[in-house]
């Protein structure tokens, strides 16, 4: 794998070099008030996570016209390379930089120290600074709804989850899905396969196949390509889209999808910088604020659809929370009693499975 990494870095270096050269060349001709930079973990054509962030970038361009120009760098590995790319963006006159993956957290904080006048926005992290805000979506709300649907739809009582890396964000999604599923079907359980990548369509699809071969008849995922859902479609089982509506890949199998909507946030934050009102903060929005939406419910019997709509409405209004007690962890210990609700601090650091998830959480 070292060889691959090395070569990808070389490739990336070349891209960044080229991007920087173009940036310098055209800079004098521009008269915009603000340059906004975006750092993406995958390609914009992944049709998932990065794709939705890029739609947010286009919304910023649309909203401010000539006043704002945007730059993006895609497929940036998490780690040392990210630091170089972020530095490059800050150096080339970008006043606001969005870094859109969890693994960019430390590089973002480091670069932010050296550029106190540049504003940084880091997605899904938990470290802030005077010029670094964090933002994320409460995607677990959508996963709870998916869990409810899965619990009612499964015939084998086994659902399969293609997961990327064991970070709190992903673990939270797994737990919310499981709690949703158990709320309607106490006999159901969840199998999890970790693929150790955000993006590798072939491997994601293979993981879905492994899960289906071992009895899962509902597939969901926390990776970025449509491959697991498409595998579900080809194998004749049901599934959910991730980050964007993926119905065209699974017209018979997609029951709904989490749709990330970054547009309002990106536009608001860009406006704040232009107006001089930008302040560091931590934003965690969900269904209620519209940072998360659900794709239309499809391929569902009427009673399941009704239950899904009710759950969605209750979560949106705040009448219900995905992590309402009673909640028991895998070891059988009660982590929230009936009537209690896990607070955001616990959710942000979530490092255990709830009851109903099979296997043990990789540490």
């Amino acid at each position: 794998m070292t060889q691959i990494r090395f070569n990808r870095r070389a490739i990336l270096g070349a891209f960044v070099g080229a991007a920087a050269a173009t940036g310098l060349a055209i800079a004098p001709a521009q008269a915009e008030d603000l340059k906004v930079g975006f750092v993406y973990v995958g390609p914009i054509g992944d049709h998932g996570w990065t794709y939705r962030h890029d739609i947010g970038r286009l919304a910023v361009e649309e909203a401010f016209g000539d006043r704002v120009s945007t730059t993006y760098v895609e497929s940036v590995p998490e780690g040392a390379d990210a630091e170089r790319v972020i530095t490059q963006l800050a150096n080339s006159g970008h006043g606001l930089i969005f870094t859109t993956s969890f693994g960019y957290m430390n590089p973002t904080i480091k670069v932010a120290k050296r550029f106190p006048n540049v504003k940084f926005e880091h997605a899904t992290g938990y470290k802030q600074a005077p010029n670094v805000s964090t933002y994320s979506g409460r995607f677990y709300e959508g996963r709870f709804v998916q869990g409810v649907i899965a619990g009612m739809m499964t015939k084998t009582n086994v659902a399969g989850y293609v997961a990327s890396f064991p970070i709190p964000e992903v673990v939270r999604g797994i737990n919310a899905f499981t709690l949703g599923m158990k709320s309607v079907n106490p006999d159901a359980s969840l199998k999890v396969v970790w693929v150790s990548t955000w993006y590798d369509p072939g491997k994601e699809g293979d993981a879905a196949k492994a899960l289906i071969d071992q009895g899962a008849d509902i597939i969901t995922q926390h990776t970025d390509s449509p491959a697991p859902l498409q595998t579900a479609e080809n194998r004749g089982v049901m599934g959910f889209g991730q980050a964007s509506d993926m119905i065209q890949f699974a017209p018979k199998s997609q029951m709904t999808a989490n749709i990330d909507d970054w547009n309002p946030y990106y536009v608001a934050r860009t406006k704040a910088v232009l107006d001089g009102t930008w302040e560091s903060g931590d934003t965690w929005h969900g269904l209620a604020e519209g940072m998360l939406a659900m794709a239309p419910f499809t391929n569902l019997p009427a009673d399941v659809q009704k239950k899904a709509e009710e759950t969605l409405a209750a979560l949106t209004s705040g009448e219900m929370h995905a992590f309402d007690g009673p909640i028991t962890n895998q070891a059988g210990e009660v982590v929230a009693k009936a009537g209690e609700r896990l607070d955001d601090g616990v959710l942000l650091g979530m490092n255990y499975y709830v009851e109903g998830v099979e296997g043990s959480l990789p540490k």
Partner: protein
Amino acid sequence: MDALMLLLLTVITAATPLLLAATGELVTEKAGVLNLGVEGMMIVGAVTAFAVAVTTGSSGLGIIAGAAAGVLMSGIFSFLTLSLLANQVATGLALTIFGIGLSSMIGKGFVGLAVTPLSQLDIPGLSAIPFLGPILFGQDVLVYLSFVMLFAVSYVLRKTRIGLILRAVGDSHDAAHAIGYSVLKVRYLAVLFGGAMSGLAGAYLSLAYTPLWAENMTAGRGWIALALVVFATWRPARLLLGAYLFGGITILQLHGQSFGWSIPSQIMSMLPYLATIAVLVVISGDRAKIRLNAPACLGKVFHQTK
């Protein structure tokens, strides 16, 4: 038994793209040319195959277009390195960078489209054999092709005059030139063959493995194929072993996780790399034999006028 069969079927799909690309690269390297652009040729093959299959509605045309795209990409490489005598390592790396960029550009209009997966081609009679039938004789055309090409390459290299000339060119281009063989012609053909095979591997990814187009969807498989050629010490049989070992353990570890083996998933993810390297290094431990199989002129520039 049913579960084992499903597992083996998945292993075949994981190993096929590696085997196709590695077989092509083996021939290229045997002729003395090191083409590091496998990943780039593969991804361009993938996007072209997908684009043509979506536009025409025919997977067959898609496969042909994928191979043709691989040939074109390797044509650029061979012109630069063989005719203009550019450095092979640098040109190969550039070809990969170019291929990834080019494929994103071609693929822009095809993101989010779906295509009918490549249909399986049951071989009459044989595919009805219980257990082995569906595994060996119920595959799609590219899987059969991956085997046919591997055996053909193995046979041609060992048993035929063409194979002898190819190996002579790879082992000592000056000697081959002195006897009167056209080193350039042989190398051009070998590189183009490698390109076609990489293109087919790409077509397999976007038409059969995961029938969709997504940027960077090769995800490093071209590099794995390259590494397999070296670890298999340029021997076709070991290439087959390596590709299936790598594919097999990749799938096995996913199944293991889903089954609930209590091994950390990070270690499971390392397993395919560790096991493939370990096995191939152990069976290829004999240095004299490696020297026998390794093309002596690999990566060296050939000056025809010398």
